[in-house]
């Protein structure tokens, strides 16, 4: 029986990969969103402090006697202290002229009395954030515009961002791990019913073709329904074919037996030699047909049963003994002795009907192809290699096509005039193969055929 099934990626893997992949994408997205949001907030924080600093300087600007004084408070710069000790630059312009601070800080020329302007610049090899604003001062004679820029490096911001990035990465990773664990859990719960169905199918015996009745999820309902349907039909067709074989055997054999008995009876009454000869040929042909029908049906039965072996614990010695007892009358007609050699109890697992059939066919051959007043020895052993050996004292197998004798409908050159269909050894061989063994034909050096059934 072929157990191979074409396999594509498992449902469980697909489900897990989809869920984990989704979780990974979400985790990365979470990281990016949190990071950029945090960067925005951190930048806003720095901007608002810079703006406050600018405002406090601008507010301190006054015109006194036509001259600008900017007596800004200590807090203007002390509010810019950070954990990373960021550098601070500033510039105070009156109209377009620097009156104090760093001339390296660019003059951004902000609109007077409007909102603060922010920008990023490079100053002394450092990236700085600049806030600027301007104010109009109106004095008695003069009107002047004071503009103030305050710049700060972004080291502390960087530190904050790195910390937030690390935290966000941690969150992302945590989310991912959690989602992965969840997806494994979800996958196994989803796959669970499928697994349960599989194991209940596997656990079933060969004859068990009952429908599955445990509840299954909706999605599996069509599958299980068709499975049940399929098994129902299988069960039906199996019992049909079993019935059919029995029926056919009966139907063929009965009329043949009737015809044969008529022919025999007629033979008694016919005197003419040619008529007698014809009738004898007729009887012979009927025998051949009957035999062939019997063997064919047996073979069909064996082929069918081989797929569903009904294995039981068998006492092989007892089985052979019974068989020999039923064959003894035929053997006695030929003055042949059937001898059993079974020194110990041999217990095996096997299908009794098939094994009986196989052994009967081999003993039947020994009876048919060996001379009268000889012995047939049937040895039963505990070794699997020569479980049953049947040996006669006849001429042995014809050497020329010995290898093919177990093939279907193949008969040897020594079978002329002997009724047979060429299926006996085929049946024996099929049975041992179905039991996981093999059949060996051999001729003994001192004469006699020997058939060994190993299983």
């Amino acid at each position, binding site marked *: 029986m072929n157990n191979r099934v074409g396999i594509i990626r498992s449902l469980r893997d697909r489900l897990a990969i989809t869920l984990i992949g989704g979780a990974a994408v979400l985790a990365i997205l979470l990281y990016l969103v949190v990071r950029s949001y945090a960067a925005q907030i951190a930048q806003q924080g720095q901007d608002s402090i810079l703006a406050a600093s600018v405002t406090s300087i601008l507010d301190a600007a006054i015109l006194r006697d036509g001259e*600008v*004084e*900017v*007596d*800004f*408070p*200590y*807090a*203007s*710069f*002390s509010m*810019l*202290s950070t*954990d*990373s*000790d*960021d*550098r*601070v*630059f500033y510039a*105070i312009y009156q109209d377009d002229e620097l*009156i*104090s*601070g760093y001339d390296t800080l660019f003059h951004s020329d902000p609109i007077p009395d409007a909102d603060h302007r922010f920008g990023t610049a490079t100053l*002394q*090899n*450092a990236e700085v954030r600049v806030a600027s604003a301007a104010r109009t001062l109106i004095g008695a004679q003069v009107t002047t515009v004071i503009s103030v820029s305050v710049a700060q490096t972004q080291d502390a911001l960087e530190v904050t961002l790195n910390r937030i990035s690390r935290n966000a990465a941690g969150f992302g990773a945590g989310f991912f791990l959690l989602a992965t664990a969840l997806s494994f859990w979800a996958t196994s719960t989803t796959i669970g019913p499928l697994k349960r169905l599989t194991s209940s199918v596997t656990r079933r015996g060969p004859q068990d073709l009952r429908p599955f009745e445990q509840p299954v999820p909706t999605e599996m309902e069509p599958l299980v329904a068709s499975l049940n349907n399929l098994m129902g039909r299988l069960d039906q067709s199996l019992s049909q074919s079993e019935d059919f074989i029995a029926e056919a055997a009966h139907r063929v054999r009965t009329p043949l037996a009737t015809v044969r008995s008529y022919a025999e009876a007629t033979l008694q009454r016919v005197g003419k030699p040619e008529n007698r000869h014809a009738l004898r040929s007729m009887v012979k042909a009927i025998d051949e047909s009957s035999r062939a029908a019997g063997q064919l049906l047996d073979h069909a039965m064996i082929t069918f049963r081989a797929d569903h072996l009904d294995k039981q614990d068998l006492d092989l010695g007892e089985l052979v003994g019974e068989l020999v007892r039923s064959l003894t009358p035929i053997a006695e007609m030929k003055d042949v002795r059937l001898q059993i050699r079974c020194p110990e109890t041999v217990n095996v697992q096997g299908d009794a009907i098939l094994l009986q059939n196989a052994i009967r066919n081999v003993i039947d051959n020994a009876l048919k192809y060996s001379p009268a007043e000889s012995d047939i020895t049937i040895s039963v052993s505990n070794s699997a290699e020569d479980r049953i050996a049947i040996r006669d004292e006849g001429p042995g197998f014809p050497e020329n096509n010995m290898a093919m004798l177990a093939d279907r409908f193949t008969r040897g050159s020594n079978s002329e005039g002997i009724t047979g269909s060429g299926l006996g050894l085929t049946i024996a061989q099929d049975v041992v193969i179905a039991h996981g063994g093999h059949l060996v034909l051999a001729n003994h050096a001192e004469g006699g055929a020997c058939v060994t059934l190993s299983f």
Partner: protein
Amino acid sequence: MRYFILLILTLIPAFALGQEWEEEARFGNEGAQSTLRVISSTDTSFFAPVIETFVAKSPSVAISYFVTSTAELNRIVRENPSGYDVVISSAMDLQLKLANDGFAKELTVDGLPDWAKWRSSLFAFTTEPAAIVMNKKAFPDGRIPQTRQELIQAMRDRPEEFSGRIGTYDVRESGLGYLFATQDARASETYWRLTEVMGSLKARLYCCSSAMIDDLVTGELAVAYNVLGSYAKARQDTSDQLQIVLPSDFPTTMMRTALVSAQSSQPQIAEDFVQHLISLQTGSTDNNMPLPPLDVENAVTGRSNIALEPALMTYLDRLKRRNFLKEWESAIIQGQ
């Protein structure tokens, strides 16, 4: 003392180098491979033990030690940043601005709390309160003022005793004096009243703490305001006529700072030197160094130090400085 010789400690005439130093000294072996140039506002006598222990540890290094005023030091370093390796000054504001303007190199120096360094490039190594130093003879009743308020009262009570005998920094000249004055002014209005009283008593203005202490010892001065306590203490050993008072109303405490020039030609040696200095100043308290140590414990709770922060640049602003000096002048020079 076995490993090095103190080579010279001489005053060099102005014309010799084109640069007039208050003091100039060289430490270390004659055949030393490299010479570390340290420019400082701290008197050589205070720094010699630090340098001597350093050259003893690293015999291949000699050290040239130049002393000048804080304002002059700031100007020299800005003009010629590659001319000096280590810059040491008591004017925290000027030092911080040097660091802020990129003149200081970032170092990895161990053993300092966060508040004692700025940007890993400016390192504090002393804690020195500004003191009121008084000649005990001027207070025969022994009632020595403990706060600025009491000092004002004492001066108002006996103007004839104190007239012309009060000394303080000329903040126009001295960077440290300006720092003390601005921090005082920031802390309390009392400063301005005190300055006005001192001005009315024809206060004498000095460039540096040591000169004020000299005049205190001779009795020429009765009171010196905002003198470095450490300098006074060093002199008190020889003369117990002085009384050092750390005003209890609000203390002003300065930290001396060191930085390594960003353009130093031997940054590694300079860094080692700064590390050595800091290890000495933060280590065991029983070292008999003349430099006061960095007060690592008290500073955390006391919070009396002038903080190392960009706000120190506030009073260095041109407009702010102009304003402050105008006000200060009108207060102190009123009667003169």
